[in-house]
């Protein structure tokens, strides 16, 4: 039995292209070097988000397996959808029982920092070993200056466009500023190859692109001191700009959810949108299976960084995935060893490759992961961690900031104005009121 597993492991390690020893040997070596020695007879319960790429989870399961073999720690992994992680983790935090580790999204650790296992040692160790933390996702690991979680990865959303349509619209390269971006959208509309960005309750897409527009103009929901600051001339400018953009969009964007732009893009109706790498991967995969139309589409798709707004620096909002341990765990060393193991080069690199560009590293050592160079069209997604602001913008990261995004305060503000439901003053006032409610 052991032999069989070992052979399987060797084979999969070879398949992953790992040179110099098997995965298990590497794992054993790591376990010996690791500063955290798991407690005797330890077992870990891990709760994580449900994967959106099969290959990512396959690599994850392999990693968990290797960890168990190398350290003797039994690991149970359970999966929950994005929306269910936070309630489950909260119940565990309140009752003091449940999973030892939770891998969730956004500001989950900031919801109950005093219930989190301190991670300063792990964060410092990883930073020292792997070239330091990339600054974008760092706030998601900290509360009051102390590390309470480890930001594992970031899910990047960028400009997805059809090369031929952009060229026909008179652009050789993708615009890098807001006026150029508006010009491109106008020209695309004129050619009947329109752009479209979700203005509906699309948790990922709509929040991502509208915060980018708002922040790009210097408008923020809250300021440095956590005071509501949405009622500003910058917000008004962002709204005016967005209304012009909206005029160039394909019909129906106020009803869009996170899947709508993928569908419309792949159907050939949509020529520019903001999305993760999923549209491209879907087209490429279908193309590889012999779908000629999809193959041609994949060749015509490219990605670009979000143009930079008048403030002069990137103002993107990308989704972070931090992992935390609870302080009630009976096996804190096993928990820390697991996280360190997961973030180690031997494990993290193949895992990141398995994610095919959906996920971006949080440590500088992985900036050179082959996934970003294997296909030049993947490249921009590698910058997601470096270019993102926390979900709170310039304000301190807090559960309220995540709640404001989940409640679509910014999204609805833009949607109300763009669809002509409210005038400029009223729509800002409504958003201000909603923000005050959330941040009271």
């Amino acid at each position, binding site marked *: 039995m052991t032999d069989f597993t070992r052979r399987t492991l060797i084979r999969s390690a070879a398949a992953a292209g790992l040179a110099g020893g098997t995965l298990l040997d590497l794992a054993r070596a790591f376990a010996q070097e690791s500063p955290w020695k798991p407690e005797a007879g330890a077992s870990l319960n891990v709760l994580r988000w449900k994967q959106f790429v099969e290959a990512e989870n396959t690599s994850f399961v392999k990693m968990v397996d290797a960890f168990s073999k190398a350290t003797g720690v039994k690991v149970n992994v359970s999966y929950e959808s994005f929306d269910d992680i936070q309630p489950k983790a909260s119940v565990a935090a309140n009752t003091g029982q449940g999973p030892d580790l939770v891998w969730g999204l956004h500001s989950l650790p900031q919801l109950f920092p005093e219930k989190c296992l301190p991670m300063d040692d792990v964060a410092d160790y990883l930073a020292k070993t792997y070239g330091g933390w990339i600054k974008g996702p760092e706030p998601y690991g900290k509360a009051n200056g102390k590390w309470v979680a480890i930001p594992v990865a970031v899910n990047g959303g960028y400009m997805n466009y059809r090369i031929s349509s952009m060229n026909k619209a008179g652009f050789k390269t993708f615009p890098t500023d807001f006026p150029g971006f508006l010009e491109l959208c106008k020209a695309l509309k004129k050619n009947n190859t329109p752009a479209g960005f979700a*203005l509906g309750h699309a948790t990922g897409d709509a929040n991502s692109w509208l915060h980018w527009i708002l922040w790009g103009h210097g408008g923020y929901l809250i300021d440095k001191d956590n005071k509501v600051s949405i009622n500003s001339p910058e917000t008004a400018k962002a709204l005016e700009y967005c209304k012009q953009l909206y005029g160039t969009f394909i019909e129906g964007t106020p009803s869009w959810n996170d899947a*709508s732009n993928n569908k419309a893009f792949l159907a050939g109706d949509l020529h520019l949108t903001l999305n993760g790498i999923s549209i491209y991967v879907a087209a490429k995969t279908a193309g590889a299976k012999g779908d000629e139309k999809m193959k041609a589409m994949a060749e015509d798709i490219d990605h670009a960084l979000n143009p930079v707004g008048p403030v002069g620096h990137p103002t993107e909002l990308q989704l972070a995935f931090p992992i935390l341990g609870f302080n009630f765990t009976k096996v804190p060393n096993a928990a820390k060893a697991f996280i360190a193991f997961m973030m180690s080069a031997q494990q993290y690199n193949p895992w990141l490759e398995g994610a095919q560009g959906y996920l971006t590293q949080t440590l500088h050592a992985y900036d050179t992961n082959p996934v970003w160079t294997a296909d030049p069209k993947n490249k921009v997604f590698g910058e997601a961690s470096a270019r993102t602001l926390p979900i709170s913008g310039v304000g301190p990261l807090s559960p309220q900031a995540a709640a404001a995004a989940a409640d679509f305060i910014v999204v609805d503000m833009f949607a109300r104005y763009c669809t002509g439901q409210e005038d400029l003053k009223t729509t800002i006032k409504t958003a201000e009121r909603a923000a005050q409610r959330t941040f009271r």
Partner: protein
Amino acid sequence: MTDATAIATTAGGRTTWERLRSHRDWLGFWFMAPAAAILILFLAYPLGLGVWLSFTDAKIGRPGHFIGLDNYDWLSDDSVFWGSVFFTCFYTLVASSIKFAIGLYLALLLNKNLPFKALLRSIVLIPFVVPTVLSAIAFWWIFDSQFSIISWSLVKLGLIDRYIDFLGNPWNARWCLIFANIWRGVPFVAITLLAGLQTVSPSLYEAATIDGASRWQNFRHITYPLLTPIIAVVMTFSVLFTFTDFQLIWAMTRGGPVNATHLMATLSFQRAILGGSLGEGAAISTAMIPFLLAAIMVSWFGLQKRKWQQGGDND
């Protein structure tokens, strides 16, 4: 136990416990106790807890403190909340009335001697049998802004030149949801009313027809009065289901566009679970109670037996 009882009995007649246990007046109480315990544990307690939460600032992951009417105070000034109250009432009123009208019509039709009666009756039930989420997703595709089969057909027929923005325009989205709700809810009304119709004795119609009653008079003076109690039950349930609808809205619009189609139930979920403000979500849910009570009152009075139904005069 036996020992204790024996001792208690020898110590001076029957103990209080003994008397409570066997007294006839208390027997009913004992029989009711299990049911009452279930109701209190699973209905009254959560309801009470919900109302209590609405007076606190509880967030997910943080127990709340009592803040009195603060949540309601914020809601009273929240246009999204009032929008959801309006749409909930509008949705319930319009969808329920149409469901009643179509349901009654279908029931009367199915009560006739039609060929393939059994088959037709089962076909009518289909929308009710399909899981709501599935039918909601089907409707979501039907009303999609880019892939709508309706828009596609109309464009191919040359009747319109651009796709209809079904779910992106507030009023279009509202009507689409009402349509989907009606489609789903009609079978329940129709089949239940049909069951009611079949309890009406044919001899009454015969007698009335011999007396020269028209079909309308038959309906107005025999069918309708005899059907009243069942109509009251059906419509109460129909109104309650519609008022507390969640799945259709969540699968099709998530309360969008721009919060135009939030029902109080979806808004409560949005604020409490996704937004993490349990207290505020609970306040929205609690605000639904008066409306639901009103609906129950209607059925309460509708259900009360008329005197003539028990052989007395109708006054």
